[in-house]
């Protein structure tokens, strides 16, 4: 179950319910979130199936990835994904965590948090979750999650809301090395949100493969603020939108390629994080890296939460052993 950040008509990315700086009530979450409605309505009516009495799994664990832009939760039962949920982050990481985990638990057909044997949190909000048993860095979690989805993956490129990272993974899924961008929105979800605002095309417009023009513009500024000005200049010079969009994706792909070369790109390469949904970026990265990015069988946005859940399962099994 996925809730995407809502895009208003000008394409600026607004957190659900325009709720920046305040807490969100569950009621507000339903507005404007396709796909989120059913689960939330079910939860509000108290009608979510409660299978508490009939626990069919030996090990039930949860993984939480509270990122800067979205919160993600995964519930695993005996190594199988039973439920997952993604939601635009609220200003309160605890609340974000509570909502996504409650929804993932419901999707898993469980009754409450108490049924989970172990919970690992990750992401920028990972220290804020009092009911998580432990926290781990998102680097370890993305590597683990991506490797679970695609065991042949050796390089993970995670592009999140406020950072991007390239992680080199061993054949057994351990982090060998990683590199992250620093102090800068360039090459992150925030960058695309800013560009979408400048182009009034929405994040979908930037992602759409049909919008990737044949002659990508050169976007020379890595700085998000200046790049947005540059894009506005291009728009006002009458440059065709698809060529600007292709230029934006190419500029980010170029930056990420430099980072990836620092670590060393070993196939197969997987994209995770929210920006993995940007098909235009994926295509631009494939062109720059001169290889195909592997298609993961599960939602790559939940890779971090999945990895956290997999570590939680390890921890629980070690405890009961």
């Amino acid at each position: 179950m996925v809730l995407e950040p809502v895009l208003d008509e000008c394409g600026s990315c607004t957190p659900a319910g325009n709720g920046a700086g305040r807490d969100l009530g569950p009621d507000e979450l339903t507005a404007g979130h396709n796909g989120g409605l059913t689960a939330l309505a079910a939860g509000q009516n108290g009608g979510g199936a409660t299978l508490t009495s009939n626990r069919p799994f030996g090990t039930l664990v949860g993984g939480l990835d509270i990122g800067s832009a979205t919160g993600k939760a995964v519930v695993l039962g005996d190594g199988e994904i039973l439920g997952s949920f993604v939601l635009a982050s609220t200003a309160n990481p605890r609340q974000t965590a509570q909502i996504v985990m409650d929804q993932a638990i419901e999707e898993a057909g469980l009754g409450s948090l108490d049924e989970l044997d172990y919970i690992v949190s990750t992401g920028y909000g990972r220290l804020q979750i009092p009911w998580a048993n432990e926290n781990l860095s998102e680097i370890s979690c993305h590597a683990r999650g991506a490797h679970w989805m695609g065991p042949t993956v050796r390089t993970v490129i995670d592009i999140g809301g406020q950072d991007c990272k390239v992680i080199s993974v061993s054949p057994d899924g351990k982090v060998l090395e990683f590199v992250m961008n620093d102090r800068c929105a360039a090459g992150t979800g925030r960058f695309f949100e800013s560009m979408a605002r400048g182009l009034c095309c929405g994040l979908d417009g930037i992602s759409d493969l049909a919008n990737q023009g044949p002659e990508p513009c050169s976007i020379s500024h890595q700085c998000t603020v200046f790049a947005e000005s540059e894009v506005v200049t291009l728009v006002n010079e009458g440059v065709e939108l698809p060529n600007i969009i292709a230029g934006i994706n190419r500029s980010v792909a170029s930056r990420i390629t430099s980072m990836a070369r620092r670590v060393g790109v070993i196939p197969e390469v997987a994209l995770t994080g929210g920006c993995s949904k940007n098909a235009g970026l994926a295509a631009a990265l494939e062109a720059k890296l001169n290889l195909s990015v592997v298609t993961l069988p599960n939602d790559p946005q939940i890779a971090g939460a999945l990895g956290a859940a997999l570590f939680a399962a390890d921890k629980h099994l070690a405890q009961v052993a």
Partner: protein
Amino acid sequence: MSAQDAWRIFAEATRSLGNPEIDAWKAQGGKVVGFFCSMVPDELFTAAGILPFRMRGTGSTSTELADAYFTPINCTFPRHAFNQALLGEYDFLDGMVCINSCDHVRRVYDNWIQALDTPFVHVMSLPHKVDDPQVGWYHDDIAVLKEKIEGQFGVEITGDRLDEAIRLHNRIRALQKELYQMRRAERPPITGVQALEVMVAGTALPRERYLELLEEVVEEARTAPGVDGYRARLMIVGGELDDPEYVRIIEEQGGLVVTDSTCFGSRLMWEAIDEEDPDPVRSLARYYIQERPSCPRMCGDQPRRLAYVRDLVNEFRVDGVIAERLMFCDQWLVEHYMTGNDLKADGIPFLALDREYILSGTGQLRTRVQAFLEAIKGTSVTIRAGAQSLA
């Protein structure tokens, strides 16, 4: 005076620019001269009876005033240090010696003489290579600074006085090194936070007074039970790192910093100045250009710097190296890239971090260090919010 008092004085001197010891020094008519960069031979000031104070930007919260002179793509260290000067925080200085250690720091000189009326402001010319001709060059430049100090402060820096100052600074170096070498133990007597406090305080206190305090601290460390329960032994490699809080965040993630190669760290004291040369100015020139561990602004000397880092990694049984760099520093950017590749070939985990001079982006710092420790130790580190330092 107990070791506890010494630690308090060190911690206080590290976390502010002025300190009560400087106040007392000034009250007795003592002079204080600030100097940028560890390549300035501060023994000269000690020989002249002047307190040498290593320039920092400690306590700064903004570069608002300095940014009229600098730009946002200049290094944040000189911007914060100069901002502090513009705010009057350096009014206790009777002089300031700048150096072309890098172009950002060098420009502090140009801006300083325009904006401030410090009685004595001088800029040194540091060569870029480490061969014999450069020793001769630096010898002459040190001699020029010596004459300027003598003229400005009405003192004669005789050979005997300079010899005495060198012996005092060497004695400090020897004790600092002894303290560092105790950290080779399984249970090091001090944390990385404490080590940096010791080193920074050594550039901010009257040196004879500092030596007394250092003796207390070293004496206590000889029998200290030591730090236990850490997850990995770390080394920090980098440049102008004077903020113990930065090290604290690294140590809060569970890694203990056991050694370093930084501008306020081991490079200041790992080697001693020759006390036998009949020309002490020549001793100083040879020490600063050729004998002390060099910094990346010196050309063609990377193999020696790498060997220094490798030796410390082995000697201190380092599990991972954290390379810190102030943003926009091209010297350290290239150095870390080279060192990282070489250490990785040795199988030594290496993490390169960018930072700004004042502590910021601590969430990003925590994430990187935590991930680094997880990668070193096979993902077994738990971090609790508000974790205490290891000390």
